[in-house]
C-alpha cells in the first residue's frame, strides 16, 4: 500500500501549522512555503491522476483497518481529476493573492488557505460519508476565516449570513447521516451501495428521506436554486482571490451529488427511484435562468460575477440531473471550464476594484492598466457566457447534445440557449460600461493616480485564461477523458470491490450482525 493518496491531505495539514508557528511574522517565508506546497500538490495530484487514468482505483486504509470498519480514502478518475483541478486553481489564486498583496491585509491568509485546500482535497478523496462531513467542516471553517479576511463591516455581515447558512447545512447533513446509519448500519460509501440494495421494499421510508436530505445538503453546497441565497453576498463581499478559490467549493457539492447518486443511490435503484429525478432538472434550469438574469440585473460587478457562478452551477446541474453517461461526461467537462472561468472572473473583478472607488456598473474614469484588464475580461466573459471559440461553447454543446434524446429536450434547449443570450447581453453591458464608456470620462484632478496591478497579478489571471484556451484546444482528449470518467462512474463494481475486498486489519472478522439492525 503506497501512501501517496493521503499526501494531498497531509501536506497542507503540516504546512499550515508550520506557517503559523514558525513564520508568523515573515510574510516572505510564508509565501515561499505556501507556493512550494501548492506546486508540490500539483505534482502529487497529477501523479495520482496519472495512476488512475487507466481505470484503476487507488485505496488508502487509515490505520490499515479494513473497509467497512475503518475509514478509507479512494482515488478514482473523477476524484483525482477534481483534486488536480483544485491544486491548479489554487496555484493561480495564490499567485494573485501574493501579487495583489491581499495576503498582507490580514492575519494568517496562507495558513487558512492551506487548511482550505486540505478540506477540499479530503472531500474529493474520501470514501466515507461521515468523513465527507468532517472534511466539509474543515473546508468551511477555513473558508469562514478567508471570507472575512481583512475585515470590514460589510464583509463581516456577509460572513454572518454565510456561516449561519452553512451551519444549517451541516446540521441537515448530520440528520441525513444519522438516518442513513439507522437504516443501513454503515457510512462507508461502497458498503452503503451494497446495503441500500438489500433494504426491503416495504421499509424504504427512512432511506428515501435520507437520500433526499443528503441531496438537499449537496444542493446547498452547489448553490442550486432555491438554496442559493447564501452565495451572492458572500462571494461578492469576499476578497477577490478568496472568491476565486471559492469557485471550486460549489463544485464540491456537484462532485458529491455525482458520486453519491451514481454509486449509492443510482438512478435505477428501486428504493429511491423517482425521488430526485423529477425536481432536480427544473431546479437546475431555474438556477441557470435566475443566475443569468441576475447577470443582466446586477448593479455591481462583483454581484454580476457571483450570479454568473449561480447560472454556471445551474448549467453544471442540468446534465447531472439527467443521470445518463453522456450527461455526466458533459457535466465533468463543464465543471473544469466553469471552475477556471469563475476563478478568472473573480480575479479580474479584483483587478477592476484596484483602480475604482467602487464596483458599481456606472461609467467612471478608466482603471489603471485598463487595456490589459479589459482584454482579460473580454476573454473570460466570452468563456463564461459560452460563446465560441472558448470552452464554454464546447461544454454547452455537449450539454445540449446530452439533453437531445431526453423527453425534456425542449425545456433544456430553450432555457440553456435563452440564458446564454441573456448572459451575453449582461456581460457586454458590464464590459462596455466598465471599459468603453470609461474613456469618455476624465479622472478627477485630485484623485491620486492608482498604480496598475502588479505583473504577478496579470500572470495569475493570464494563467487561468490560458488554461481555458488549452481546455478548448484539447477539447478532444478532455471530452474523451470525461467520457471515460462517466463510464467508470456508471460501472461502480470495480470501486466497490476494491474498497471492500482489499485485505486489512479486521478483514477476517465475522460480518456485522444483521440482527442488531
Amino acid at each position, binding site marked *: 500500500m503506497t501512501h501517496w493518496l493521503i499526501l494531498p491531505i497531509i501536506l497542507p495539514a503540516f504546512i499550515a501549522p508550520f506557517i503559523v508557528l514558525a513564520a508568523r511574522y515573515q510574510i516572505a517565508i510564508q509565501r515561499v512555503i505556501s507556493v512550494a506546497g501548492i506546486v508540490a500538490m500539483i505534482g502529487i495530484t497529477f501523479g495520482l491522476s496519472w495512476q488512475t487514468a487507466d481505470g484503476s482505483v487507488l485505496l488508502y486504509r487509515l490505520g490499515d483497518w479494513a473497509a467497512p470498519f475503518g475509514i478509507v480514502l479512494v482515488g478514482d478518475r473523477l476524484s483525482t481529476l477534481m483534486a488536480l483541478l483544485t491544486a491548479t486553481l489554487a496555484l493561480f489564486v495564490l499567485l494573485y493573492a501574493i501579487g495583489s498583496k491581499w495576503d498582507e491585509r490580514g492575519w494568517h491568509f496562507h495558513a487558512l488557505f492551506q487548511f482550505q485546500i486540505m478540506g477540499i482535497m479530503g472531500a474529493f478523496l474520501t470514501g466515507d460519508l*461521515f468523513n465527507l462531513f*468532517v472534511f466539509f*467542516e474543515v473546508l*468551511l*471553517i477555513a473558508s*469562514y476565516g478567508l471570507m*472575512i479576511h481583512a*475585515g*470590514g*463591516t*460589510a464583509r*463581516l*455581515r456577509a*460572513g*454572518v*449570513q454565510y*456561516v*449561519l447558512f452553512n*451551519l*444549517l447545512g*451541516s*446540521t441537515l447533513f*448530520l*440528520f441525513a*447521516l*444519522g*438516518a442513513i*446509519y*439507522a437504516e443501513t448500519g454503515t457510512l462507508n460509501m461502497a458498503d452503503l451501495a451494497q446495503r441500500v440494495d438489500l433494504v426491503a421494499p416495504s421499509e424504504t421510508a427512512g432511506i428515501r428521506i435520507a437520500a433526499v436530505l443528503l441531496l438537499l445538503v449537496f444542493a446547498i453546497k452547489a448553490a442550486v436554486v432555491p438554496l442559493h441565497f447564501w452565495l451572492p*453576498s458572500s462571494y461578492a463581499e469576499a476578497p477577490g482571490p478568496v472568491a476565486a478559490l471559492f469557485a471550486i467549493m460549489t463544485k464540491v457539492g456537484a462532485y458529491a451529488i455525482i458520486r453519491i447518486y451514481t454509486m449509492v443511490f443510482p438512478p435505477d435503484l428501486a428504493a429511491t427511484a423517482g425521488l430526485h429525478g423529477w425536481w432536480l432538472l427544473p431546479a437546475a434550469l431555474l438556477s441557470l435562468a435566475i443566475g443569468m438574469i441576475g447577470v443582466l440585473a446586477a448593479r455591481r460587478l462583483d454581484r454580476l460575477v457571483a450570479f454568473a457562478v449561480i447560472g454556471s452551477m445551474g448549467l453544471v446541474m442540468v446534465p447531472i440531473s439527467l443521470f445518463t453517461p453522456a450527461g455526466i461526461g458533459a457535466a465533468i467537462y463543464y465543471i473544469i471550464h466553469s471552475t477556471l472561468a469563475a476563478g478568472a472572473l473573480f480575479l479580474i473583478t479584483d483587478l477592476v476594484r484596484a483602480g475604482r472607488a467602487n464596483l*458599481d456598473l456606472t461609467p467612471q474614469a478608466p482603471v489603471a492598466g485598463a487595456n490589459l484588464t479589459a482584454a482579460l475580461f473580454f476573454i473570460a466573459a466570452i468563456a463564461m457566457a459560452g460563446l465560441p471559440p472558448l470552452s464554454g461553447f464546447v461544454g454547452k454543446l455537449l450539454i445540449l447534445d446530452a439533453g437531445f434524446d431526453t423527453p425534456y429536450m425542449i425545456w433544456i434547449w430553450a432555457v440553456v440557449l435563452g440564458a446564454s443570450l441573456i448572459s451575453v447581453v449582461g456581460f457586454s453591458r458590464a464590459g462596455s460600461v466598465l471599459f468603453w464608456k470609461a474613456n469618455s470620462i476624465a479622472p478627477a484632478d485630485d484623485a491620486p493616480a492608482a498604480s496598475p496591478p502588479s505583473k504577478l497579478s496579470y500572470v495569475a489571471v493570464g494563467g487561468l485564461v490560458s488554461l481555458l484556451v488549452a481546455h478548448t484546444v484539447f477539447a478532444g482528449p478532455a471530452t474523451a477523458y470525461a467520457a471515460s470518467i462517466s463510464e467508470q462512474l456508471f460501472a461502480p463494481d470495480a470501486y466497490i470491490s476494491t474498497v471492500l475486498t482489499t485485505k486489512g486489519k479486521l478483514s477476517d472478522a465475522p460480518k456485522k450482525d444483521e440482527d*442488531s439492525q
Partner: protein
Amino acid sequence: MEILVASAIGILTAGGLYLVLRLRTFPVIIGISLLTYAVNVFLFSSGRLIVGAPPILTDATIYSDPLPQALVLTAIVISFGMTAVVVMISLGAYLGGNDDHVDEPVAEDAQ
C-alpha cells in the same frame, strides 16, 4: 423511552427552527445551538436505544453500538467550534455596523 427521546428531538428541532427564522443574530445562534443538540441526540439514537449495555463487544449478547457515540463526539466538537466562530463573527459585524440584523442592510440597496 423511545417516545421521550423522539419528542425531545422534535421539540428541540421545532424550537431551533423557530429561532433560526428570527431576524437578529442572537436568537438565530441560539436556534442553531438547539438544532445541533437535536441532531446530536438524533445521531445518538441512530444506533438504537439500549440501556446499561457496554459499547464494546464482550461475551454478553447485548451491546450498544459504539459508532454513533463516536459520531456524536465528533459532531459535538465541530458544532461547538462552529458556534464559537459564528459568535465572534456576528459580534464583529454588530460592533462594526451597530446593527445585529441577519438580513441585508437597507443602506446597501440605496447605494
